[in-house]
Each structure stands twice: as structure tokens, then as C-alpha cells.
């Protein structure tokens, strides 16, 4: 895969950029509000953008579909179609109070109502981890719950 650079934009959101095979630099700007911008950089002044597209969430979906969504995200949309149930991938950050504790000690389900259904650690996947599995920093937690509960879980693991 192409190397993608991530840049935080304080107060705005996050920007991902990469160089296309044809040598054009492209950036996707994700606003906190969910809006996206697609920017194509100027060849003459590589710091500035020559074209910027402004997309709302509907446009995002349409574009993603046209470009061909990955099988994983298609599977996720399948799950998300269940009324009120959502699934999320959350990377546990180094230094979060949950790393080093077991899933049971963290009382993740009691506190957020979300269940951890799998852990992705490096190249390994631990399906259905028990309560005695220790969370390590950098683990990706796959969890199922209500959108609100998942948000709380994200606050716990990713803050």
C-alpha cells in the first residue's frame, strides 16, 4: 500500500495525504464534524492546493462506493444495518489507564455496555477474548455495542 502521512489539525480534524502512482499529491481532510475535503496539491506550489472538493456525509458514501469500498467496510455496514447496534475498531493508546489491565479488571462491559468481540495484536487476531486477557498498548479492540457505548469505550481506551 502507498505510504499515507497523517497530520493533526488542532481544532479542525485530521489530514491524510499520499502521493499517487502518477506522482500527484492528494489529501483527504476529515473534519471533526464528519465533513470531508479532498485536496489535490498544486504542481507549481506544492504547499498549496489547486483543487478542493467539499463533501458531506452522503457525498462521502457515494464516492466511497464508486471507488470500491473494501470488503471489511462492507461487512461492517452489514452489521451496522442492525437497528441500534454498531461495531467499532478502537486502538488502545499507550498510557491509557486500561493498558496493562485485563478486560475483566477494566470492567469495560459494565462501564460502557459494549462487548469486546476480538483483539487484533500486530498480525495476530484473538477472537472472543476472555476477561483475563491483558490489554496491551497498540492492541486494536473490536467491540460491539450501542453507538453511545462505543463512544464511551473509545474515550476509555483512546484518551
Amino acid at each position, binding site marked *: 500500500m502507498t505510504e499515507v502521512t497523517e*497530520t493533526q489539525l488542532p*481544532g479542525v480534524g485530521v489530514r491524510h495525504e499520499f502521493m499517487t502512482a502518477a506522482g500527484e499529491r492528494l489529501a483527504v481532510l476529515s473534519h471533526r464534524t464528519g465533513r470531508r475535503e479532498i*485536496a489535490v496539491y498544486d504542481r507549481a*506550489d*506544492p504547499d498549496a*492546493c489547486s483543487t*478542493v472538493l467539499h463533501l458531506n456525509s452522503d457525498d462521502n458514501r457515494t464516492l466511497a462506493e464508486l471507488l470500491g469500498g473494501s470488503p471489511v467496510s462492507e461487512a461492517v455496514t452489514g452489521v451496522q444495518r442492525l437497528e441500534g447496534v454498531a461495531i467499532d475498531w478502537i486502538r488502545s493508546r499507550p498510557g491509557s489507564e486500561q493498558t496493562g489491565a485485563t478486560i475483566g479488571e477494566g470492567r469495560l462491559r459494565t462501564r460502557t455496555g459494549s462487548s469486546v468481540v476480538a483483539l487484533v495484536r500486530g498480525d495476530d487476531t484473538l477472537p472472543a477474548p476472555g476477561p483475563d486477557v491483558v490489554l496491551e498498548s497498540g492492541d486494536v479492540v473490536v467491540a460491539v455495542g450501542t453507538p453511545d457505548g462505543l463512544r464511551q469505550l473509545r*474515550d476509555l481506551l483512546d484518551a
Partner: protein
Amino acid sequence: MIPLIAAVGDDAALAFIEIGAVALVLSVLARVAGRLGITAIPLYLLAGLAVGKGGVAPLDVSAEFIQLAGEIGVLLLLLTLGLEYSPDELRHGLRTGAVPGVVDALANFTPGVIVGLVLGWEPAAAVLLGGVCWVSSSGVVSKVLADLDRLGNRETPAVLNLLVIEDLAMAIYLPVIGAVIAGSGAGDTVETVAIALAAVAVILTGAVKWGDRLSRALSPASDEALLLAVFGLTLLVGGLAQKVQVSAAIGAFLVGLALSGSVQSRAAAVVGPLRDLFAATFFLFFSFSVDPSDLVGVLVPAAALGLLGVVGKLASGWVAARPLAAGAPGRLRAGTVLIARGEFSIVIAALGATTADGAELGALAAAYVLITAVAGPLATKYADRIAEVAARPSRDVPGRRFR
């Protein structure tokens, strides 16, 4: 009794008419500002001059209401300035932005202090003027960046990080200067500054330690309950801060810094409209108390400060964008977009309203914000053309001279 009630009713009717008319005028000004692509703050200030003392249509009945609403406006303004960045962004900003932050302070804070001293002001007022000149308006900058489609540009993270640093610097500067003003006599001042710093330390430690818990406690609330909770907390902490000689505005700012996570963005969304209403009143009230004849007297120093302010921010942007390997046009764009000053400058000047040089400081700050908030967005719009013209004489120099 009946005549009395009728009189009160008449007063209220008059106040409603005045406030309603003022709000409508502000709404028109906000639209005009939107058209011009500048912030509405300078226009609000001009409107305040028109209805203030010595203006064309002085208000009398509703002046008291506007004063209180304006004071609430400062608190909400600083609350949302504190809410703007997450603790993560603050930490990241500190790591990457220390050097540009110091350059920014030296290039913009110092000239203000020196001009204040040259004008023969007390040291405290001169330090306030330094603050007025220092901080870019994050509201203007982020709006201009979005309007000109510059969020994707390479120099933009440097600009945004500098805004974060300035926000953090204000968390120290505001309480200290607030305490310096409150204290009289050297020993007293040392004591109030110590109290202020202790209060800030307590609130910041509390925010870091229990900010999560506070945010979690607030997060299940409905929008209505959240609005009331945040509003109440802001006024309560602000009032307590005022009690211990730290300005209420600073308390509100720290409440904003303390809220984090998902509740942060929700709080910003629910408080936003309320902030817009009260903050407009604050800017109005601020220039309300500025005498237009004072404004004429400060035109020369304001023009000088405006020039220094432009140069200072060009230097800040130039240095800040350097590590991102931006070229000369990008570095010039970063500098010009930072020129606009706004909300913080007016808040700082308002803190000093009671000092001996307060009237002059207020007039100077109003003129300064008028100049920079209009010049900044214009300058940055044409930054690329300026860079082209500036680069022309050096065309004979081989290679990319500015890299």
C-alpha cells in the same frame, strides 16, 4: 400602584425596542462581514461606538442590561476558546510549537509593551497592551483558512499549532495580569499573583485529574441539561475565581480547558449560539464605553502598532512554517493569515478598563483590532501575489532561494 407598574412597563417596552433594534443592526453587520470574508468583531465595535457615549444614537435605558449580558459574553467567549482544543492537541502543540511560540511572543508581545512604556503608561497597562498585540484571533484565522480552502495546505498545521500555543500562553498570562491589576503595592501584587497562579494550578490539576470524570458525568445529559450544566459551571467557577482575585474570565477559560472527549464537542455545539449572542453584546459594550474622541487621539500609536503587528506575525508565520518545509509563498501565507487579532485582544483590554490608562488602552485596542482584523484577511488573500512580487528582484539568483 398602577402608575408605577405602567412606568416599569414603559421602561421595559423602551428597553425591548432598543435591544431589539441593536440586535437587528448586529445581524445586518454579521451578514456584511460574512460577505466581505472578515470577522464581524470590528463591525460590532463600530456599532458600539455609534450607540455609546458621544456616539450618534446613545442608548440609556438598556445600557445596564447590555453591560451584564456583555460580561456573561466574555465568560462564554473564553469558555469556547478553552473548549476549542482537546488535551491531546494541547500536549502535541506544546511538543512541536515551543520555538515558534517563543518567537511569536517576542515578535508581538514585546512591541506592545515598548509602545505602552513610550506612551508613558504604568507598567501594568503596558503589559496589557503587549497582550492585546500578541494573540491572533483563532476565530478569524480558522474561518479564513476554511474560506480560502487552505486547510489542506502544508503550512496550515503550523498556523493551527501556533494558535494552540497562544491559547496555552493565555492560560498563564491572563491570571497573572489579572492579579497584577487587582493588587496595589508591590507586596500586595506578589500575593495576588501567587493566589492567582495557585488557583490556576488547582483548576488545571483538577482538570487533568478529574476532567475525564467530569466529562463522563456530563455526557449522558440531554442537550438541554448539558447546556444548563455547562453554563452554570462556567458562571459558578467564574464567580469563584473573581472572589479570589482571579478574573472571572480566566475561570471560564479553565472550565473550557477541563472539558474533554465527546462532551467537549457537544458542549461547544450547544453553547455556540448562546456564545454568539452574548459575545456580540460584549464587543458592543466594549466600544460602548470607548469615547470616539479618544479614538482620534490614539490613531498614530494604533497605526504604528498595526504595522508592528503585521511585521511581528509575518515573522511568526515564517518561523513556524519552516519545519514543515514550506516554500516562501507558503510561509508568507502562514504569516499573513495570523495578522488578524480579535477576541483575546478585546478581552485583555477589558481587563484593564479600571486602570489609570484604561480609557486610552480601550480605545487603542479597539483601533488595533479594527486595523488588523481587516488588514489580515485581505493580506492573506493576496499573499501569493505579494510573494510573486517580492521574489521578482531576486530572479537572477539561481535555485530556489527561499527553500
